[in-house]
């Protein structure tokens, strides 16, 4: 990430093959410092993670003399980061799948099937949309305990398996699909479920992907719920594990930062690959 900047700048100075005479825009003078300020915390996170402990105690802080990979090995062994990453993956992926299936089914029914009580149910779902999590977390903890899920991954999955936001997003999508499409299928004798899977599913790509991205980000980065629902280190998610790790490595900055980098790599890599997609998802739903 640090290497990309000089290369970009040089390429602009040379000018691309299409517009050889064009001078670089003066806007770079604003954009480069802006990017540096926004990236500085992340750049320093990486730099510290490859420093030695002595190097992090200098003031003012400077660049590390060499790459000290040992920090990553230490972090990997001292905090079971591999285990935590696996837990986070299991929880996030299950919640994404749950949301895709349950919210698509419910969204379709609310938009298209005239059934008794649909309006009342939908209003109830909408009402929970604006309830902040902190209000419901105490009773949810009791619910989870009554379901015998305390301190298991199930406690992290169940409350996020279907979200009011997902139902709302899906219903909005189905109201925009022309009715004629499914009616044709129904005249041909296809049932509701078959119409949904065979005819409508292929059109749902972007909406499903938006829901998947937002659910994944939300569940992966969630901290407060795992903090109160999980006690044993073996069932921690990576965010909670990192916080736990921080508590035991308060003065060992290189290993702590190596752990932090490890915990962020999966999402950062996904983000770099699918940046446009992340941005579109957030812009289209106004949701973080």
């Amino acid at each position: 990430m640090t290497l990309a900047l000089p290369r970009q700048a040089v390429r602009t100075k040379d000018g691309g093959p299409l517009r050889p005479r064009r001078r670089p825009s003066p806007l770079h003078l604003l954009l480069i410092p802006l990017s540096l300020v926004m990236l500085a915390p992340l750049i320093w996170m990486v730099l510290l993670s490859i420093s030695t402990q002595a190097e992090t105690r200098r003031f003012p802080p400077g660049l590390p003399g060499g790459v000290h990979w040992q920090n990553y090995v230490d972090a990997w062994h001292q905090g079971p980061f591999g285990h935590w990453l696996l837990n986070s993956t299991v929880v996030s992926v299950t919640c994404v799948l749950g949301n895709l299936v349950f919210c698509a089914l419910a969204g379709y029914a609310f938009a298209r099937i005239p059934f008794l009580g649909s309006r009342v149910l939908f209003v109830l779902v909408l009402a929970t949309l604006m309830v902040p999590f902190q209000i419901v977390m105490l009773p949810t903890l009791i619910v989870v305990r009554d379901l015998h899920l305390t301190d298991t991954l199930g406690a992290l999955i169940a409350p996020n398996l279907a979200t009011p936001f997902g139902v709302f997003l899906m219903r909005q999508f189905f109201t925009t699909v022309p009715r004629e499409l499914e009616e044709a299928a129904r005249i041909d004798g296809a049932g509701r479920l078959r119409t949904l899977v065979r005819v409508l599913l292929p059109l749902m790509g972007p909406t499903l992907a938006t829901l998947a991205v937002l659910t994944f980000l939300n569940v992966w980065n969630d901290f407060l719920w795992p903090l109160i629902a999980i006690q044993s280190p073996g069932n921690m998610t990576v965010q909670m594990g990192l916080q736990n790790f921080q508590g035991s490595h308060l003065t060992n900055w290189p290993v702590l930062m190596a752990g932090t980098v490890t915990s962020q790599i999966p999402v950062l890599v996904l983000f770099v690959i699918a940046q446009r997609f992340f941005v579109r998802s957030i812009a289209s739903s106004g949701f973080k």
Partner: protein
Amino acid sequence: MAVATARRPTGRRAARAERKRGGRFRRADHLAGWAFVSPAVLLIAVFGLVPVLWSVLLSFQQTDLTSPGTWSGAANYQKMVHDPVFWQAARQTLYYCLMFVPVTMVLAIPIAVLLNQKVRGMTFYRMAVFAPLVTSTVATGVIFSWLYNPQIGLINAGLDKLGLPQQGFFQSTGEALPAVVGMTVWGWLGFAVIIYLSALQNVPRELMEAAALDGCGRVKAFWKVELPLLAPASSFLLVWLTINALQLFDEVYVTTKGGPLHASTVLVYYLYQQAFVDFDGGYAAAIGCALFVVILIVTVVQLWLGRRSSHYEAG
């Protein structure tokens, strides 16, 4: 079921209408409808709807959340009114909102305008601005506790270079909360920029061309044409950022733990402390209900603002 029988005619009429349009289900529609929505509705009811009502009940109880509670009337609310730390937390939450929301919005507009230009390497610049968005709150806290570290942190080193005095940041009662603001603005700026950027990209090209034809300069066109068109995005952000600012917890927990001397204790952090450190679940639920009322008020204001600014979009 009783409700279902009573309202049968409406359902039948709807079913008949559906049949006219070529549908072939009547009773089957009700069955299908309920079958399709029940998994999601059941989950949302158990983990969303029931807990809200339960939370209200808890706020009238004395409970540690592990054993059954006892009814205590409005005792928790009375305690809240007379609790100086609660009011300190409320004041600090308000102070945090008043700093975090305007700073984020004011910084986001020029950055969105910059990122909306056609310049080489824009993908990289956008990525740089959006990267904090996917950085988790815990990681943000860890990184900023080093950046703000009074002895070895990068920010004090920068101040040193500029000949400015060293600061305590998270370790100083006066600076802890502003330092939290700085950290969360970094984390949320990308979100605000995305919202403004998509609003800017929706500004009709003809509008800007017409302004240019009328002899309107680029700068004037921004102030007179683009900025007014950002009003709906601004009203959305104002509310969304405020609601999220009221719920600040993660970053405080990871960095200052509400300290020093409660200087950065915000409402949700205080709620957490009451429930899981002092085991006063009833009082924590009462704080949660109070917070919910505030958030509801903000949401109602949003609906009102949204209706007022919607004729901008139409025009």
